[in-house]
């Protein structure tokens, strides 16, 4: 597309980057079709192409973001499905990050929304605060209708997502080192996810067991914290940078002890952000090498384990698994086959879903901030799941797990929980009813032998 920046504007690094992105876009509109908000809203302004066009206008004229741009950027799920579709290679991710920072700085937002966003930013990345909030949330759950009626639909949506029962995992206790029984091959750090370790700590337990069984030493560090994704998606760039730098320091400390073979992420939403640290930290001088060094070691757990030979599964099940790859995995990190391959090797029957490229509506804090579109997408996803009639739904990110668990009648787990189960771990929470069937199958198999 033609752009209209002045030479002076183009001396600004951000505007130069934006200009390069706009020039690649041919406005062909293919992205509209796979955009998770456009399929629901059917409005150009809720599509990547429309947003790019509005951002272009804002940046070219140097004007402050208006209500319309703010509204429609807020409705973007950042699922990045558009980036998979775009044949021209338009970097929507960094363009939308740029716009969000601009909106956060100068955009018009009602108090109610600013309050909710502030609340999320100051609670979710901090596990202790988050744990307290969850307990309070359980108490407040019954007041959802009241909140909705009073116009606080975002707060109501937030409470909607608080699990009805709290359950702390008996095993997962936070920081520590899991050393494998036999010979140790590699040493990795596991990022445990801020909300994940509170809401479903079993995912981390399963990840640790799964890796330790393969001779991998797994470190969980108290010094690492939020990856910064939550703040970045809300346009709070400096907060995101702060989180990222803290993590870098923690990684460096560990690396100083002994070389790290990988920084393993089992919440793909975090993975997309951590892999993008080089971009996030590009203006922080003097740490370029360090950032590059570590970002080369960041793996989604499915990527890291893809090359491992797990051998025969201990529990060979005939379970039908509907696999939902999170957008952050599929579009953000271009991970396409690894989870499916791992699950198939472990003896599960994998079913893919129609409209697999469309978001389930979770999208970080999206289902809290945009409950209407999020609910519609959640129901849409649930309908696709129902068509498959699986025994269980597997995914790779806590957000999707919560969202689909909320909308679908089928149990949802993280794929590492299934893998861990197959290779000797406990039956995942919520699948107890399937254990009997698996046992029966095992007995029949034994008899047949």
């Amino acid at each position: 597309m033609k752009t209209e920046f002045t030479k002076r504007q183009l001396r600004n690094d951000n505007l130069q980057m934006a200009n390069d992105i706009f020039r690649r876009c041919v406005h062909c509109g293919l992205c509209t079709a796979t955009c998770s908000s456009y399929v629901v809203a059917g409005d150009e302004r809720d599509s990547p192409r429309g947003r790019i066009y509005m951002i272009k206008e804002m940046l070219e004229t140097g004007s402050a973001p208006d209500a319309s741009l703010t509204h429609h950027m807020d409705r973007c799920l950042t699922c990045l499905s558009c980036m998979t579709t775009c044949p021209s290679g338009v970097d929507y991710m960094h363009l939308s990050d740029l716009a969000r920072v601009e909106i956060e700085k100068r955009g018009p937002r009602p108090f109610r929304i600013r309050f909710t966003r502030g609340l999320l930013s100051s609670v979710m990345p901090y596990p202790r605060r988050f744990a307290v909030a969850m307990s309070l949330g359980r108490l407040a759950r019954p007041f959802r209708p009241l909140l909705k009626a009073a116009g606080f639909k975002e707060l109501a949506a937030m409470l909607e997502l608080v699990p009805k029962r709290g359950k702390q995992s008996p095993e997962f206790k936070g920081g520590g080192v899991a050393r494998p029984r036999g010979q140790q091959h590699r040493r990795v750090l596991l990022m445990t996810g801020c909300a994940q370790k509170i809401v479903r700590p079993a995912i981390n337990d399963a990840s640790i067991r799964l890796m330790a069984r393969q001779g991998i030493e797994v470190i969980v560090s108290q010094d690492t914290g939020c990856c910064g994704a939550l703040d970045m998606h809300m346009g709070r760039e400096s907060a995101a940078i702060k989180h990222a730098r803290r993590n870098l320091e923690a990684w460096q400390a560990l690396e100083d002890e002994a070389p790290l073979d990988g920084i393993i992420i089992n919440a793909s939403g975090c993975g997309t952000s951590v892999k993008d640290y080089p971009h996030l930290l590009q203006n922080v001088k003097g740490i370029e090498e360090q950032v590059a060094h570590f970002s080369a070691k960041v793996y989604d757990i499915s990527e890291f384990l893809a090359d491992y030979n797990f051998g025969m599964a201990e529990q060979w099940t005939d379970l039908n698994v509907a696999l939902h790859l999170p957008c952050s995995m599929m579009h953000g990190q271009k991970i396409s086959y690894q989870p499916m391959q791992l699950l198939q090797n472990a003896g599960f029957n994998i079913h893919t879903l129609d409209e697999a490229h469309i978001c389930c509506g979770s999208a970080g804090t999206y289902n809290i901030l945009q409950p209407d579109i999020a609910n519609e997408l959640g129901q849409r996803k649930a309908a696709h799941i129902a068509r498959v009639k699986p025994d269980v739904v597997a995914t790779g990110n806590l957000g999707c797990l919560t969202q689909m668990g909320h909308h679908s009648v089928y149990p949802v787990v993280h794929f590492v929980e299934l893998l861990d189960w197959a290779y000797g771990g406990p039956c995942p929470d919520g699948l107890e009813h399937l254990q009997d069937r698996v046992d029966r199958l095992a007995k029949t198999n034994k008899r047949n032998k």
Partner: protein
Amino acid sequence: MGIFTTVSNRVAAKVPRSLWRDLKEVLKPDQLILDESGRRAYETDALTAYKVMPLAVIMPETTEEVAAVAEIAHRYSIPLVPRGAGTSLAGGAVPIETAIVLCLSRMNKIIDIDYTNRTATVEAGVTNLAISQAVDRDGYFYAPDPSSQLACTIAGNIAMNSGGAHCLKYGVTTHNLLAVKMVTADGQVLEFGGSFFDPIGYDFLSLIAGSEGGLGIVTEATVMLRSKPEGARPILLGFDDIDAAGDCVAEIIGEGIIPVAIEFMDRPAIKVCEEFAGAGYPLDVEALLLIEVEGSDEEIDAALQQILRIASKFNPSHKRIATSAEEAATIWHGRKSAFGAMGRISEYLCMDGVIPLSKLSTVLEKISEICKSYKFEVANIFHAGDGNLHPLIMYDANKPGEIERVEKCGAEILELCVLAGGCITGEHGVGIEKRDLMPLQFDTLDFDNQMRIKQLFDPDWRLNPNKVFPLKMSQAFQDTGSSLLSEDDA
């Protein structure tokens, strides 16, 4: 008051306020876009060289709403511009400043699928690919497959009479369309055709397909479904010389083989597609043919062998038969993404001329001469089976004067196509882009006979205004009843 005060352009100032009140009565608030930044998102389509901000944008959800809006627009003499996904490469959805854009993308329901009749009835905003996806698991598909099929809507396809790579065998939209529901300029709802073959009386569907939204606003369509072939596989044939590729196509067809698709790419195009899709296209050939045949595995093998035998006369330097569905999909993915992938390198103007196949080599040579004379790079991608050329002329949109120059270059290419016995547009439509080139193909009487039809359906010329016909000639027709220009205008 409220949001209406935000309409601030000079055109809106002339519109009676009661228009907004009347519209508000038939629409929900979120169906009416009036703010400047919202209207700007709808000022252009996939041809961004043209942009005009409309008076308003309306997002109807039912035929009744479209009819109600059309009736109101009729009373206030407001032009209407129908829009689907805005993927037109000819500016087909670019509004004028006094017009309301009727964006039908929310009308995206599949109404009925009937395998006994082998039809699908869908709302206007359903995407082309969504129809095929909806019937895929039952062994059917909808045949026309424009490259933008992922996003483009069925009503947009009808407006432009869209084709695609596979229309060599299955025909274009008009051959696959059985019925439409259409709202007229004054808000009546008319239906044409049904789940049966051939028209009752005059064949109005043949006029509606390709009328670029100028005769009515299509809100529903019934299309033919076809049974999916048992399988389909492409073969890639690379040639060191463009003529050989062209002759090879003519020979294949002359021998009585009609593949489902024969696609041609020249060296620059191959490079771009390969870089995007990693389809395994050879990078060291001048011309690449992508030929697809259908049938059972054995039938495909036999047909491909026959094609190989014919091709061997023309010394292809590269031969590769896709062996799996995945491989076939990647090969097609590269081709179908060609236009977008070109955007990685440069802005481009995408031409859509058609020529008789026998003139292929000479026309390609002349295209390259024309582009050279303007100092533009050109990549050629086209449907070789039916002679539909898509030269992509690369230019720098930010360089002053370049857009005008590239349009002149394009016009020369289209003139060349007409002189060779072809036409200026095979599947993208005329839109704004080519309206003033129409006299290359038509004379005054040809125009009169077309314009009378426009006049009958849309007496005030309010539907998708300023498209298809040369502006001066359509003005002359509206003034005098003849498109003949006075000496001053000519």
